[in-house]
Every structure is written in C-alpha cells, then in structure tokens.
C-alpha cells in the first residue's frame, strides 16, 4: 500500500493495532476533537481495506490486517462491502451509467419544430438568430475573463499548498516538542521515585488520612477537600460502601475530572472500620497535585463479574 506521509503511516499502524497505549492516546484525542483528522483516518482505512481486497499488501501487512480486521464482525462486514464495491460487477456499472444517461438534444429540438405552425417557426428562427449572435458575444467575453482567472487560481492553489505544508511542519514541530517534554517529565518522575524510595527506607513517613462517602454533586465535592500537609508521603483514603457482602473483591481507579487515570488497584478487600465497611486505599501523595479527582469503584461478584458501584468526587489541596 502506497502511503503519502508519516502521519498516514502512523494511522495505518493504529488501524493494524501496532501502537502502544501511550502512542494511541494523543491520536485518539485528536480524532475526537478534529473532524478533518477523523475523515483522513476513515479515508486511510478505506484504502487499507481496498489494498487488502486487491491483494496489494505485502506479506507482513496482510498478516497484520488479518489479525486486526478479520476477528471483529463489524470490520469483517467492511471488508465484504469493499469486495462488492470493487468487484466491477455489471450491476454496479449499470447504476453508475444510469447517472450519465443523456437524451439526444438535437432529436428533441427537431421534434419540437416539426410540431408548430410555419409563421411561428419563422418568428422562432429570427429569435434564435438573435440569441445566437448575443450568445457568441457572451462566449468570447467569458473566454477573455476565464483566461484572466487562470493565473489567479494557480497562484491561490500554490499559496494554499504552501500554507498546508507550513501547517504540517508546525504540527510536526509541536509533536516533537511535546514528545521531548514527555520524556523529560518521565525522567524527573523516575528520579523522584528513587529519592522517595530512599527517604522511605531512612525514616518514618507522614500519612494523611481521609474518609469519603459516595456522591458526585459539585457542592458536596467542594466540602470533600483533602488537605495534604507538606511532607506527607502517602494518603490513606477510606471509601465508605454500603453492602460489601455481594462482592468477593473490589477494583478502584482514580482519575482527574478530565479523565486521566493516575492510579488503579485490583483485588481490594472491604475492611471493618470505626465508620463501618470501607475500602482502604493507600496512595503515594506525590501522584496528586491540587485539583479535582474522581474515584470509581467496581465490585467483583462471586461469579467474577465486574460491577460498576460508586463514584467519589473530591478536591485535593497540597500544602
């Protein structure tokens, strides 16, 4: 399959599910917010499917396509549709041809003139002659104006192509800068983790403890402010739950209100505390910055179904 740009190569890798989770994230965020990018991906997907149907893919590409596309019913349907569309069958050609049928123009004119009186025919002929003369003048004038338009249109197309190229270059520069920032951030986090580990080994740590009850109303959330003192190494959050009897274990995930997950835990158990049944989470304090968060809680039933239970919204203020 012939690909035009690095961007399209990235899109093909996404469609063949060759990207990592971190690589998919900025791409999918852009798809949701940028209609043109979404249409570009749809067009690349169609071309990938067509290349598969026409047997134009290389062996590794074909194998990747079969893994990604032929295991899911909606995607298999798209491949079957493409086979039908590209089959060149007479039924489809006929449908296209019907759009291009034209009746014979001169045949219709002859039929019309044959049907009317001679006097009317003479008047119509004189009128037609006048129209032809006027029409000729208009045609000459139109050609003159069109010839003036050609260089203008060419100039516009060139400047548009230059603008498109400049936009693409800028976008690539921004992507590269963002990748650099992400890498630097990861390095800093790794250093912080090592320092944190060293400090924990050296001495006792400060734990900030809070209790949360379910509910997502903004007014309630404001009152659920977790003030994390300076020097706290971890935050202990007790999630009050109702009936814990139906579940063998629990799963919790903490996200920002923008949907970014910062922590998750599985195989958690309910504990009996002074406030009743609660799930107790111990989270490194450095994962939080001041802002709003949501904890989602799921219960695992005895037959191992995951059940979405409660949400807990709260604000963190770091001192």
């Amino acid at each position, binding site marked *: 399959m012939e690909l035009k740009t690095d961007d399209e190569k990235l899109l093909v890798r996404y469609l063949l*599910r060759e990207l990592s989770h971190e690589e998919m*994230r900025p791409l*999918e*965020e852009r*798809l*949701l*917010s940028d*209609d043109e990018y*979404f*249409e*570009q991906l*749809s*067009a690349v997907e*169609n071309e990938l499917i067509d290349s598969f149907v026409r047997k134009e893919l290389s062996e590794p590409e074909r194998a990747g396509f079969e893994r*990604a596309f032929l*295991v*899911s*019913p*909606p*995607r*298999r*349907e*798209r491949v*079957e*549709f493409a*086979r*039908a*569309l*590209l089959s*060149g*069958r007479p*039924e*489809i050609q*006929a*449908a*296209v*041809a*019907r*759009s*291009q049928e034209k009746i014979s123009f001169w045949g219709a004119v002859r039929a019309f003139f044959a049907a009317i009186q001679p006097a009317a025919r003479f008047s119509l002929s004189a009128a037609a002659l006048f129209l032809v003369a006027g029409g000729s003048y208009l045609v000459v004038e139109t050609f003159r104006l069109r010839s003036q338009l050609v260089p203008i249109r060419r100039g516009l197309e060139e400047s548009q192509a230059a603008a498109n190229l400049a936009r693409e270059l800028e976008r690539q520069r921004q992507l590269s800068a963002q990748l650099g920032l992400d890498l630097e951030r990861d390095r800093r986090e790794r250093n912080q983790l090592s320092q944190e580990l060293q400090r924990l080994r050296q001495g006792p740590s400060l734990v900030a403890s809070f209790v949360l009850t379910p509910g*997502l*109303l*903004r007014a309630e*959330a404001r009152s659920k402010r977790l003030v994390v003192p300076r020097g706290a190494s971890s935050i202990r959050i007790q999630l009050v739950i109702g009936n814990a009897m139906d579940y063998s274990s629990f799963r919790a995930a903490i*996200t920002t*209100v*923008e*949907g*970014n*997950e910062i922590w998750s835990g599985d195989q958690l158990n309910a504990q009996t505390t002074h406030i009743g049944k609660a799930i107790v989470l111990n989270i490194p304090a450095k994962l939080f910055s001041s802002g709003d968060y*949501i904890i*989602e809680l*799921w219960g695992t039933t005895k037959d*191992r*179904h*995951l*059940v*979405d*239970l409660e949400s807990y*919204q709260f604000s963190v203020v770091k001192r």
Partner: protein
Amino acid sequence: MAAPGRKAWVLSQEAFDKLLAHLNPDRERAGGAYEMLRLKLTRLFEWRGTTSPEDMADETIDRVARRLLEGVEITTGDIYLFFRGVAMNVLHEYWHRQAEHPEPPPPSPPPPAERLLELLEKAMESLTSEEREIVGQYYQGSKLKDSRRALGIRLDLTPNALRIRACRARDKLEAYVREHRAAET
C-alpha cells in the same frame, strides 16, 4: 447493551440538553456535533476491536451526560479529552469482561454475495449523480490512478478533497447496506 453495573441510567431530556450545550452553544450545530461525536466513538471502539461498538459509544455518552447533570464542570476545550477518558473506562470494563467470560462474536454470517450486490445497487440509487460518478470512477476499473486524476480535474478538486468526497459517498453506501441488512435479520 448496558455494562453490568449500577442501575441502568436513562438519558433524560435535561441531561441531553446539558450535553448538547457543552458541545456547542448553538443548538443546531450542537446536534451535528453530537452525531459526529457518536460516529467517532463508534469507530474508535470498532478500531479497538470490540464486538459492540455502537452500544459502547452510547454507554460512554450516557456516562458523560450523567456526570454533567450531577455537576462536574468541564470546559468546552477539555470535553473531548473527558470523552476519551470515559471511553477508556468503558473499554477497560469490556476487556475485563472478555478476559473473565469471553463472549463469542455474535453470529453474523456474511450475506450471499448476490444479496450484497443487490443492496449495493439499490444503495447507489440513493446517491446524487455526482456521487455515483465519483464512486464509479474512484473505485471501479483497472487504471484507477488515471481515472482519479481525470475525475479530480473535471470536478475541480484536489486529490485529497476528491479522496474525502469518495470516502463520504462510500460511507453513505455502507450505511444503507448495513441498515437494510440489519432490518432483514
């Protein structure tokens, strides 16, 4: 398909209105933005290999609408990030269910080739004549590069603009075939 979980939440008119207002203050444009967003979420779940992409897209939209109704404040610029975050939660739940109890793909034997061609022929009649011409010359025939170049010149479209137009016409055909197949099963 509602993900098994807390009581099935129904998208109320109030929640829907609030969601539209977050997508665009102009209600008509918001409706278009909603349809486009639903399509994008459906395709995203399809690209991630799930078996019920439409249901998962609806589940995602319902959850975001519920959050908005309950008072979570999201700026318009962030709402698509928020949608993706919620979509990832829905996807993780799906993977977890699949790992614990793999669902066999729903039985969908391909229609006989002749039936598919009949539907496609009927679908062509629902296009405009320009769209039919684009489909005919963009996808049919042996010398596609030449026919596409000629078509672009005749319609005064750049190659990328022609590609997008062809894609849109093809999407219309696929949607027609899919709807009529669903009605038959």
